[in-house]
């Protein structure tokens, strides 16, 4: 079979729900597309650690301290799982980290923004993780089987994070006026990035990731799903969603909303977000500061002096 015929057969296979394993033959296009998708996901988990990490030391009671440390630990774990999948597609971990820190690869917009208070911790754990899980729930059916299996584990762990986040928010909403104000203020700041998170609507006919079933739903479907589940849950707490145009159209069966600022999204994911460079620098410093440890562990043992 020549390569074109082989590629055609491959795409027919994945298009009809077939699975691909790490050591199967793949067309270069497909391999590159999966790698790009997984690498961005891995990068996002790794960078996503940083906004919340600040609050680990500041958690206001013992149980929250445990829960937040555990959540951030899970995100690191997810990064490890996803980098492993990407490594098996042929790209070394060091190279992926270098590309991330050099700005050659991206991570999701939400992780480029600052956190201002404990309320942010609740809002992020609840809504950012929820928006992520809406995307991720479409992925356990990915054509690329190692990624699909990893996503099953990740989705289960994320579901706990969302419950933790909602619990933090609920506790504050049932608390003092000052706490409620903090939550509303956090929501006001995070709503824009959340709406941008799933990305602009794409033309399904041109979306290769959809065709090759690397992912199963398009960006707009994901955003609609997020709104359907979470807007009512925000409203029922007496919170205001900072978008006057937000409403559900029964007849059309969809949500109307103010068009997210796609320029902002583009600018942020290319490294111009409020915290982009600072966080990349922080990661760079962490990597360089600890290089001696990796050299010691991964290098051959040297006879003690």
């Amino acid at each position: 079979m020549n390569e074109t015929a082989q590629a055609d057969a491959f795409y027919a296979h994945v298009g009809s729900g077939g699975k691909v394993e790490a050591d199967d033959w793949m067309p270069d296009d497909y391999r590159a597309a999966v790698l790009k998708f997984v690498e961005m996901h891995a990068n996002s988990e790794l960078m996503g650690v940083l906004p919340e990490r600040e609050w680990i030391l500041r958690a206001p009671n013992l149980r929250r301290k445990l829960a937040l440390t555990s959540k951030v630990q899970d995100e690191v774990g997810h990064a490890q799982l996803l980098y492993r999948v990407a490594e098996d597609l042929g790209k070394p971990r060091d190279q992926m980290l270098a590309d991330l820190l050099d700005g050659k690869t991206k991570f999701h917009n939400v992780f480029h923004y600052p956190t201002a208070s404990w309320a942010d911790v609740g809002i992020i754990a609840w809504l950012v993780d929820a928006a992520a899980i809406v995307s991720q729930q479409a992925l356990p059916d990915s054509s690329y089987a190692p990624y699909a299996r990893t996503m099953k584990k990740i989705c289960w762990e994320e579901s706990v994070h969302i419950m933790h986040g909602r619990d933090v928010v609920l506790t504050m909403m049932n608390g003092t006026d000052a706490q409620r104000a903090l939550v509303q203020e956090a929501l006001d700041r995070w709503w824009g990035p959340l709406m941008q998170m799933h990305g602009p609507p794409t033309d399904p006919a041109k979306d290769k990731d959809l065709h090759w079933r690397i992912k199963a739903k398009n960006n707009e479907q994901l955003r609609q799903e997020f709104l359907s589940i979470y807007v009512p849950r925000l409203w029922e707490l007496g919170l205001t969603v900072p978008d006057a145009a937000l409403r559900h159209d029964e007849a059309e069966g969809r949500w109307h909303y103010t068009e997210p600022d796609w320029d902002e999204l583009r600018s942020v994911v290319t490294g111009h977000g409020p915290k982009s460079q600072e966080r990349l620098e922080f990661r760079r410093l962490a990597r360089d500061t600890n290089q001696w440890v990796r050299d010691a562990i991964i290098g051959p043992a040297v006879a003690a002096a």
Partner: protein
Amino acid sequence: MDTTREALAELLLAMADDEFVLGFWDSEWTGIAPMLEEDVAMSSVSQDEIGHAKAWYELLAGLTDDDADEIAFGREPAGYRHAALMNHARTDWAFTVARRFLYEHADATRLESLARSSYTPIAELAAKMRREETYHLLHFDLWLRRLADAGGEARDRLAAALERIWPDAQAVFAPLDGEARLVSAGILPDDLETLRHRWLDRVVPILEGLRLPVPPEAERAAPPAGDGRTRRNDDFAWLHGEFTMVARSDEGATW
């Protein structure tokens, strides 16, 4: 110390604070440890410490009709009773490994004794904690060995860290107010000096076997300074500011 109950409270506070403060320092590694796999492992260890601290605080809260979170988060820096070993910041990986190695063995020695405590709640908690400490001991024995065997910069950093923290490590066994009462009541089955020597008997041979620094015999024989659990520094003051920041931001609020 007027009563055995007060002495018991001192003991519980000391142990809870050791676990609490160390758990906090090491939780800082979450997200930035040398390797992703190690990041997850280290985070588990930190969470275990906070879990143990929580258990001791809850036991103490039961005795003093107080609240565990209030005890944990509600004191000024001078009110904490952790060993001077925990005053130090996370510093670097070698320091963390050195501190952890010494502390895990100290904690294991302490828990082994307390598992025989005449006071059942302590005996039961100590027995449970020992089971979780199995992993901690394995983990830090491994890292001590790996860094030492790697030689070069790794060994140098480790050796320097050990030299730096030996005096403060002794403070885990610093004298406690009312210790005599606890020993005679069997609440503390072995006195702290005995435990300290037992700890040294564990760690010194391991370190000597790896040709890592240990204090000279004369220094080891001398009991730790009386302020081993009361002296504080700027690093801890900073940590205290961090961990009380949100807790104190809204008087009486529930989080």
